């Protein structure tokens, strides 16, 4: 071995010659999604956040399961700011309503605003972003500038202006809040979608599909979009938490949900007057809000890690 000219040959049975390029068959076939799911279900972050979200969903759909006290009918001013009593574990608000019941019943409004806004933002943002990214050229320029205009509007200021429009002033509901949030936040989603689509649109498999005779739109829908979906899903999950906070912010400022709809934002706003004397009145809806937002953001993080293409074997 040390001699300069020796010709060394390893014993052949030490490295038996395998057939060239054999297919590994020991593992079950895995798609991107089933691979992500396998990674996700072992992550404590994902397990905790999805259990919390599941619980929140159940509370939102069936508030009666946790609270038998009707939230508004029973308000007696005599109970104003009273402490916990039997059947009323969190005490009473300034108006003498049961805090526990209001927090439980507020879940529905907060979650539905969050979910509906995300759905609207995904539909608007992904459509515009995908068209801009896929077609490029002047279409992209026009759509990108349009997005920039909306992006430049300060969120709260924009919301203040929109709620002053007569239609919105007269029809305050969950839907008006959803429209306001979607209108002011879609550009962010459009940017993410545009970037993801641009990354995929020049891939060889798209060219291959076009050469097979797949139409341009067909290639966008069947090949480009499914491959651009991962960052969009991550963004949507993170946005859900952000939108719930946004609804609370708007309601707190009095430009969100009307007083007649129970929401955590409204309750936090209502507790302002007693923040010095009875801070716990504000604490309960605020804690509910924080837990919800945290669960969605944790879920978003976990999903992002699971869909990270770098962690996927090639």
């Amino acid at each position, binding site marked *: *071995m*040390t*001699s*300069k*000219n*020796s*010709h*060394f*040959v*390893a014993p*052949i049975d*030490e*490295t038996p*010659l*395998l057939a*060239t*390029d054999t*297919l*590994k*068959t020991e*593992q079950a*076939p*895995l*798609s*991107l999604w089933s691979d992500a799911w396998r990674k996700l279900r072992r992550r404590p972050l994902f397990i905790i956040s999805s259990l919390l979200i599941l619980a929140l969903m159940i509370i939102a759909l069936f508030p009666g399961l946790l609270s038998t006290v009707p939230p508004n009918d029973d308000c007696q001013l005599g109970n104003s700011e009273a402490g916990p009593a039997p059947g009323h574990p969190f005490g009473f608000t300034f108006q003498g309503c049961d805090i526990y019941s209001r927090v439980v019943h507020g879940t529905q409004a907060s979650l539905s605003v969050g979910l509906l806004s995300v759905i609207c933002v995904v539909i608007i943002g992904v459509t515009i972003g995908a068209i801009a990214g896929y077609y490029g050229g002047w279409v992209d320029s026009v759509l990108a500038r349009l997005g920039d205009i909306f992006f430049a509007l300060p969120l709260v200021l924009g919301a203040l202006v929109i709620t002053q429009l007569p239609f919105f002033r007269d029809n305050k509901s969950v839907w008006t809040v959803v429209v306001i949030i979607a209108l002011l936040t879609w550009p962010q989603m459009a940017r993410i979608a545009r970037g993801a689509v641009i990354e995929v649109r020049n*891939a*060889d*498999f798209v*060219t*291959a*599909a*076009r*050469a*097979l*005779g*797949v139409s341009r739109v*067909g290639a966008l829908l069947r*090949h480009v979009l*499914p*491959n651009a979906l991962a960052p969009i899903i991550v963004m949507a999950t993170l946005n859900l938490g952000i939108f719930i906070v946004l609804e609370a912010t708007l309601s707190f400022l009095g430009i969100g949900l009307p007083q007649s709809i129970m929401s955590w934002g409204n309750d936090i706003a209502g507790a302002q007057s007693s923040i010095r004397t009875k801070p716990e009145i504000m604490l309960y809806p605020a804690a509910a809000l924080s837990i919800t937002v945290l669960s969605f953001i944790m879920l978003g993080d976990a999903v992002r890690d699971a869909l990270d293409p770098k962690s*996927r*074997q*090639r």
Partner: protein
Amino acid sequence: MRENNMTIPDVHVEEAGNSGVKPLLEIRDLAITFKTSTGEVQAVRNAHLTIMPGETVAIVGESGSGKSTTALAAIGLLPNNGAVTGGQILLDGEDIAHASEKRMIELRGNTIGMVPQDPMSNLNPVWKIGYQVKETLRANGRPSGPDDIAKVLEQAGLPDAHRRANQYPHEFSGGMRQRALIAIGLSCQPRLLIADEPTSALDVTVQRQILDHLDTMTTDLGTAVLLITHDLGLAAERADKVVVMYQGQVVESGPSLELLRNPRHPYTKRLVESAPSLASRRIQVAKELGVEAADLLAPTEEPAADHVLKIQDLRKVYKLRQGLGKATDFAAVDGVSFDVTRGTTTAIVGESGSGKSTVAKMVLQLEKPTEGKILFDGVDTAALKPAELFKFRRRVQPIFQDPYGSLDPMYNIFRTIEEPLRVHKIGNKASRVKKVRELLDQVSLPQSSMQRFPNELSGGQRQRVAIARALALDPEVIICDEAVSALDVLVQAQVLNLLADLQANLGLTYLFITHDLAVVRQIADHVCVMEKGKLVETGSTDDVFESPQQDYTKALLNAIPGAKLMLPPEVA
């Protein structure tokens, strides 16, 4: 030879070599283990090699054979999850397998230099070239004034070095970047240079220049070189000794010519047989098939040759935007004409930027020619209506270069191969399943792979899937755009054989776009050589290889590594 570095302790020879010269680097029974999420993986076992001072040793192997890992261990740059778990790496007799990071920093640059693989990503894009050279010089305590930097760059063959030092990497071509990396690697005059596939990303003519220059420089400095490559021809041409690695083990090592002429391990034998740069003949599948063979082998001599594709004065001009409103014309393809005979393979050869892929895209109707005509079966393809174009797509199919990019990662193999059938509404569900099974058989993939996804397949397997997809519509012409360039040598040979088989059985016509003349020799009947958008030479493969008429063609042929090393037995 430079004088011994102060930091290197006196050498005690443990095993005297025959000639009495002490080896510079000796790797003994090296084992390297990686910790992964699925457990420990042994990447290298029982590796051993010896490099004498001033000697060039090449490690040859396919991807995943452990050749780069071995070299990285020698310079102490294994990834964090990898560790040397056995054996020794002796540098001048000192075991550096478990040396401290401090000691390794002393050795790197000064004693062991490195030229990394990819010139595009190994220079930091935000720093000027000069600064990156200066960084190396300073880290090793050498003078690093502007003149020293210029000298280092000049030695690596970069003219006008003072000005070049003030440029950023994006202003350099691939070859110039590799020269800059070589300059950095050799700037501190190390005694051992590790070159990890230093030219695999470059055009062959540039590759030749750079390797020649590297040879001259290391000979002048007396530097020993550890060359890592997948190309046996290149290794044999450049190195004194060749070490063949397979599955993390050294299977054979010895003087390069001896090893090439007399391979003893079955893996080396297989490598020598399939190395394209050493082959010299068209893969002769057709010959054995008798009747058809006559016109396949001598298509040019047929009086009424059936030209399935006729390309006439094809021109493609791109507008290059330079600031607002200004645009200059750039002719990517300029006046190209050639014919493709049915049932044969025509190769378009050229280096990057020669316009060969643009020709392929225009033939596939993915780009519109600026001028000129493409006649398919006598019909001008520019005049095709959408419905006719849809039919045209059934008859002309592509296979692309990158086996990682050409399959949709979201589609399993069945859906991928079925897609063309579905798009063209051929058959029902059951008949499509049957057809996909047949296609998988044709490309020798097991039918059990239908439910798998592209990321579970190797590069060669993906390329087979791409071939099956291209065959699904029973096309007449297949356009292979660098279809085998990204594959390991053995896999490449396998895929080329598959393509040749399919051609013989199905009478396919190939238009084969490639930069690799060695591959052309194996597969093509006709060659068109392109340079900067123009066709410089056309002819039958044998004519072009045996008596090239143009200087450019000659330069390309001369640049095939290892071409002159060994006359193949059939010819000799």
